[in-house]
């Protein structure tokens, strides 16, 4: 879910844009005058035309770089001079670069909270952890398949329940300690299974209520056995970096709370022991985190030299996106990651591209989805014995025709053109077009008010003097909410209110604080319509199971709350809710790619037909890199949490000295 941005940053943005780039004046007024879009669109200033052209060019050109094929395993001289064997290393796939140099990137908002990846709750700590700790497998940024990383190979045995992982020879922690199967066994059997730190990792790896068995076979071999066949298992391993047993084991023998404090952001970074390409060297609170090269990292370049190339990786902590962009223009930052460059920034930045000595990369649609939903809850609050949603409104919100009518009345194209400045795509499905499982058969549809009116008529709604009444004569009116301070969502809601006005619906739009909105959707169930967004997963749709299973924690359109014992039941699940759940259960247990596609296609089809969430649009991922960065080859699938972000090949990123330093 996207971060809340305060009203302050909106103000700052508007002012900076107005002062700095006068061409935006046109854009802001255009959003404000949403009802009469078409007339406004006709009169364009020259500056606006350039902006539109730039934005068109950007949308057309999704950046593609050719798949370099699988990694090659090479043997190199061991780090240990006394060793008789060689080390096995993966060979990076880019061009040979230069050693040395500092890369400065940034995160916005708050500082990361911990170096302890196994305890992280926030995206910043996750992105930082991914620079310091390697995983057994990684997603191939080109194909989406699972590449072994620390592992040499991962094999699924015939029973479909046993996974054998072979580690590479010669892996070392940054302190020189050998990294072997003991560390892997410790990570899964102790840290994750016993629930140290953030227990979410345990939950994602749990299959049908049981954690897989972990068994060390020999120093370099580990076996996982899941209770039942579970297809996403290998991809779940990408979320679980291996922990250093020789450092963390003493902590796990102490009370569990101490694990939270271990390797917190204020610890001495000298105590860190890492397996990834970089290690934190210094933390300057509120300003930046400086990472140093890990000389023991086990990947090599084309010439067999140990990576990473960079000697320093600096993460500046900046309050908001606008300051990030200013610092990037001022060359204080080398790079802007995807969540910094928003739609309305992109068109303006594009105009500075050639003079600013940087390149923008359009990485295609984001995995997140923006949607509108109605509260379809039909139950009573056990405490007050009152309905969560008024019975009159329950009937509307549970009427499929009503939801379809709303969906067909919204002009998604106009949302994309005006709010995202064209840097986005209209969305009709539960998976973003970026997903490997995106159902292409589900066709987009344009705004069609007549069709909407016909649907409403079918359900007995009557339009009298431009006011819509249901069949019992109740006026159709409801409140719509989104989180305050997010200018894009705010403008979206205003446009939706206007679109629905044409059907005769009276929508009261009322932005509220993000935290309050979440409390309403997740706990009090006291809401009627909400516009919000959820992050998705381009590779594994199963990660959305929390949203789609009828008893899921984020089944927001009909949230079922836990009873006194903490269990959630869904005896009143609708047939199509059950079918979606079945799709997820089946897709979770089969390894047959064709079948998985069929199940995930079907789930998207049901959502498309039933519209429990009315999808609106998805954003494009855009990054910007100074031209002095070498080997930056981002792909849509190679994106994770900032600061690692779109640097899927961070180990071979280098600084071209030739370009002005």
């Amino acid at each position: 879910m996207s971060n809340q941005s305060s009203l302050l940053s909106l103000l700052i943005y508007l002012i900076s844009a107005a002062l700095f780039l006068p061409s935006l004046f046109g854009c802001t007024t255009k959003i404000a005058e949403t009802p009469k879009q078409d007339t406004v669109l006709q009169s364009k200033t020259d500056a606006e035309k350039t902006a539109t052209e730039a934005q068109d060019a950007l949308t057309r050109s999704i950046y593609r770089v050719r798949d370099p094929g699988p990694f090659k395993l090479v043997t190199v001289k061991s780090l240990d001079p006394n060793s008789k064997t060689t080390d096995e290393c993966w060979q990076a796939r880019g061009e040979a670069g230069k050693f040395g140099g500092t890369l400065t990137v940034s995160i916005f908002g708050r500082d990361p909270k911990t170096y302890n990846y196994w305890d992280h709750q926030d995206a910043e700590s996750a992105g930082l952890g991914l620079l310091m700790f390697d995983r057994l497998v990684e997603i191939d940024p080109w194909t989406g398949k699972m590449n072994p990383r620390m592992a040499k190979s991962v094999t699924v045995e015939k029973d479909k329940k046993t996974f054998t992982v072979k580690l590479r020879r010669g892996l070392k922690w940054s302190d020189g300690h050998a990294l072997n199967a003991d560390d892997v066994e410790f990570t899964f059997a102790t840290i994750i299974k016993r629930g140290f730190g953030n227990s979410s990792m345990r939950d994602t790896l749990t299959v049908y209520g049981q954690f897989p068995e972990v068994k060390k076979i020999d120093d370099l071999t580990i076996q996982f056995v899941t209770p039942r066949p579970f297809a996403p298992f290998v991809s779940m391993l990408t979320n679980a970096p291996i922990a250093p047993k020789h450092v963390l084991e003493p902590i796990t023998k102490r009370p569990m709370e101490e694990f939270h404090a271990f390797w917190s952001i204020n610890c001495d970074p000298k105590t860190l022991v890492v397996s990834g390409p970089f290690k934190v060297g210094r933390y300057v609170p509120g300003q930046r985190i400086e990472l140093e090269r890990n000389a023991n990292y086990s990947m090599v370049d084309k010439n067999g030299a140990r990576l990473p190339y960079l000697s320093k990786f600096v993460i500046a902590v900046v309050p908001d996106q606008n300051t990030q962009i200013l610092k990037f223009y001022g060359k204080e930052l080398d790079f802007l990651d995807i969540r910094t460059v928003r739609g309305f920034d992109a068109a303006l930045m594009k105009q500075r591209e050639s003079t600013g000595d940087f390149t923008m990369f359009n990485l295609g649609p984001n995995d997140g989805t923006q949607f509108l939903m109605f509260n379809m809850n039909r139950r009573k609050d056990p405490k007050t014995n009152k309905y969560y949603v008024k019975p009159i409104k329950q009937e509307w919100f549970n009427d499929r025709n009503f939801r379809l009518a709303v969906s067909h009345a919204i002009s998604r194209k106009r949302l994309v053109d005006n709010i995202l400045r064209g840097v986005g795509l209209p969305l009709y499905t539960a998976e973003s077009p970026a997903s490997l499982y995106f159902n292409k058969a589900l066709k987009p549809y344009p705004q069609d008010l007549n069709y909407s009116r016909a649907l409403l008529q079918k359900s007995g709604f009557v339009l009298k003097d431009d006011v819509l009444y249901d069949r019992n004569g109740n006026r159709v009116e409801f409140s719509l909410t989104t989180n305050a301070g997010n200018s894009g969502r705010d403008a979206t809601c205003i446009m939706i209110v206007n679109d629905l006005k044409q059907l005769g619906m009276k929508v009261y739009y009322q932005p509220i604080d993000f935290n309050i909105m979440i409390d309403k959707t997740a706990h009090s169930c006291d809401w009627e319509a909400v516009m919000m967004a959820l992050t998705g997963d381009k590779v594994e749709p199963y990660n959305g199971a929390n949203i789609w299973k009828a008893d899921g924690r984020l089944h927001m359109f009909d949230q079922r709350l836990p009873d006194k014992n903490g269990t959630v039941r869904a005896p009143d699940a609708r047939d199509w809710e059950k079918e979606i759940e079945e799709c997820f259960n089946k897709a979770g247990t089969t390894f047959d790619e064709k079948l998985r596609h069929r199940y995930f296609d079907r789930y998207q089809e049901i959502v498309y037909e039933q519209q429990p969430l009315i999808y609106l649009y998805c954003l494009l991922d855009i990054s910007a890199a100074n031209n002095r960065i070498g080997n930056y080859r981002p792909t849509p699938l190679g994106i994770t949490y900032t600061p690692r972000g779109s640097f899927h090949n961070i180990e071979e990123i280098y600084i071209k000295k030739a370009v002005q330093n």
Partner: protein
Amino acid sequence: MSPAVYIFKRFLQAIPLLLIISVLIFTLLKLSPVDPLAHLKANPSISQAAIKAEEERLGLNKPAPVQYGIWLRNLMQGDLGISTSGSSVSTLLVNRAGNTLLLSLLTLFFTWLIAVPAGVYAAVHRGKWVDKFFGLVTAVGMSMPTFLLALLLLMLALATGALPIGGLTSPDFFEKNVFQQILDVAHHLIIPVAVLTFVNLAHIQRQMRANLLDVYRAEYVRTARAKGLPENVVIYRHALRNAINPLITMMGFEFSYLLSGAALTETVLAYPGLGRLTLEAVLTKDINLVMASLMLGSVMLIAGNLLADVLLKFADPRITLE
């Protein structure tokens, strides 16, 4: 009453006051319907169990009076508690307080250095073009929001490339020698100090000018002039000493802003100060952190007032400490 006894009495009076303030802040925080764990709850990949565990760890599942009791008990033992980020509140405050103090003290220094002479000069040369010029400058300073000025200066920094865009130190700060480090920090401080000085300057200069003009009309000034004293002595010996009292009181109030007054400027300029930390803490309802920094603000206010009262005693012997 001797100053020492007076200070001790005021100190005792402050204790119940601080207790009442803390209860008020705590109640207000608890009444606001903000959920500190909302971001976790909105993340599909975080489980119910993880959220439960986090609630327990932060003590959010206990009734509010119990939470306040725990907070107070910890405070007595000198423990300000744990922030939602997991690190101790006192470490966070200490990390940032130094930066803010540096910024505030420099601002205070430059403000007074410029404002007091400027106020005196404007009063002495009332109605001349210098006075009108200061009038214009202070009007702008009073009406312009700090963040707007900060942004304008950032634009200037970007356009000229002469000044850094926000922050307090350069990425290569720790590779420099001490002298270069001082220069680096000074370079980064130019914009924030300029912004805050410009804005604070306005009201102190106006106040100084108005006070001095008031005193100018007093009889003893006329007497002094009638005695044939030189104008300089009249102004600096007789008029200024009497005009400075309200400014000392003002300084007492400004003391309380030292640690918390620059939140907006700090946010816009990416300055790693206490104000920005507090603002972020309020937005995410980080109770321990908000409590600690608001209490710190209250203590500073009380201490500032006390300081001003004692200073007044020294500046003006007619005042007695009661």
